[in-house]
């Protein structure tokens, strides 16, 4: 399963779209439930199966699902589940429990609909670059079509009702995946994070201390879903993102003014290691690719494209490596194979 997908570049990370030098991808997610069924966490197996049948039938009659595939979670083995998580097509939560769940994935991989995760329906649209409005329009269109077939659990005061009260109202989570090496290197990132928190947004992701940076990748999303319209939520995230992009560019400029030699050295040194290393763990690869990505943004290096780097960020993940080489591997073997794959890709100039 998913062998073809594993050989194909991830559509949402092609390095195209507005601000794609800094924003890798944009994502819209809706949480929806069906009025007459218990929420998945308290539904028994029979009910969960009925929900899957019901939602699938609604897909079919709405003509939404011509161009993709539906998978039952029981059909997807653990490796394939990790693979889909790395590709952002299912959530880590969906992966945990193997029964009574299903997912529809369209052929372009921009749309996925999980059934019986925490809510009956979790609809996600994802695309490359800062493209929130595009994602929203597509998700809204599908949501509207589904709502003509399915009687959503909806309350006139509260809006969409969800299993967890943090998703009530619009059920909307808008998020962006953003690369902020300049802010991390200038140690401005904590200031920026605390400022973001003050405007009702939340930052997720992780990074190491000082030079021990892991990818400099952050996810920023709205924290609240109730009391504001969908457009307002998206608009506020897009505006803050623009602001963060500006901060990041300023930091990059500062770095080039104060430490151009060091930055240039870091970029080329990373390129050298990636091109020649024989063993690479996933954390190290993330850091090196991040430095290389910074080099491309600053036009210090033109030997690789953003798309190549973005793709490497995904295909060097543990499950992707194993799918790519069509065999299971332990940690040590993966580190060797990972280095080999990176060398192969970077030597294809």
């Amino acid at each position, binding site marked *: 399963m998913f062998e073809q997908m594993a050989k194909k570049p991830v559509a949402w990370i092609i390095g195209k779209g507005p601000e794609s030098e800094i924003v890798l991808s944009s994502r819209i997610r809706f949480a929806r439930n069906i009025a007459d069924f218990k929420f998945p966490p308290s539904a028994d197996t029979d009910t969960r199966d009925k929900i899957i049948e019901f939602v699938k039938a609604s897909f079919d009659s709405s003509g939404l699902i011509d161009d993709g595939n539906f998978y039952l979670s029981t059909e997807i083995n653990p490796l394939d589940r990790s693979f889909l998580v790395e590709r952002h097509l299912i959530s880590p939560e969906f992966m945990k429990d193997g029964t009574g769940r299903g997912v529809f994935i369209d052929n372009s991989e921009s749309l996925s609909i999980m059934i019986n995760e925490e809510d009956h329906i979790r609809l996600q649209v994802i695309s490359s670059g800062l493209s929130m409005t595009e994602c929203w329009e597509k998700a809204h269109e599908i949501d509207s079509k589904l709502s*003509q077939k399915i009687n959503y659990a909806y309350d006139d005061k509260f809006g969409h*009702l969800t299993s967890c009260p*943090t998703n009530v109202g*619009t059920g909307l989570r808008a998020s962006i995946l953003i690369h902020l090496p300049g802010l991390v290197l200038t140690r401005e990132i904590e200031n920026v*994070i605390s400022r973001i928190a003050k405007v009702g947004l939340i930052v*997720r992701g992780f990074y190491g201390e000082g030079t021990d940076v892991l990818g400099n990748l952050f996810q920023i999303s709205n924290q609240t879903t109730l*009391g504001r319209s969908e457009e307002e939520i998206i608009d506020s995230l897009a505006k803050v993102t623009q602001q963060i992009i500006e901060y990041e560019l300023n930091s990059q400029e500062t770095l080039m003014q104060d430490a151009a030699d060091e930055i240039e050295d870091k970029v080329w040194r990373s390129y050298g290691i990636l091109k020649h290393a024989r063993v690479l763990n996933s954390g190290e690869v993330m850091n090196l690719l991040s430095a290389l990505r910074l080099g491309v943004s600053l036009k210090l290096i033109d030997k690789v494209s953003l798309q190549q780097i973005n793709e490497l960020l995904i295909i060097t993940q543990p499950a992707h490596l194993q799918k790519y080489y069509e065999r299971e591997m332990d940690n040590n073997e993966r580190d060797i194979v990972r280095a080999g794959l990176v060398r192969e890709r970077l030597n294809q100039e």
Partner: protein
Amino acid sequence: MLCQDCNNREANIHLTQIINNEKVVLNLCKECAEKRGFHSPFEQMPFPLAEIVSGMVGPSKIKKKGKKSKDDKPDKKCSNCGLTFSEFGHVGRLGCAQCYSTFRPELTDLLRRIHGSADHRGHVAESPTEDLKEFREGKRLRDELKKAIEDEDFEMAAELRDRIRELSVKEKEEKS
């Protein structure tokens, strides 16, 4: 430095994790870092929503089993799924749509604390029956009109009044 999870192997992964916008520094060995799910940077960080919700509901509202005090009210229970409010306080997840009616006053308070509001201002859900959709839209507009008048935002109030009028004209036309 030793790994803070196993206290055995050398910590060679130093992570700064952001939970609820707070910085948490972790010093872990490779094995323990993977156990915590740090092998994939695209995985979402665990976000302890249940804990937050339980924290917000507060111990004063969650009765301990077997303990009774004078001001204890009976624990509310959803007649559809059987979830009690104190159980909700523990798991942070509701059982079904009806829970929102059963625990309406408590949830109104809780939603206000989480979101700063308990009133949906987004798109009105379409529904398989058009009548219901129009009824919902009309109700939402009337609520907004009430609020606009309270806020003395008369420009907004005039606009809302016009939209309510349009909607009722449409309803009449459809009925005739």
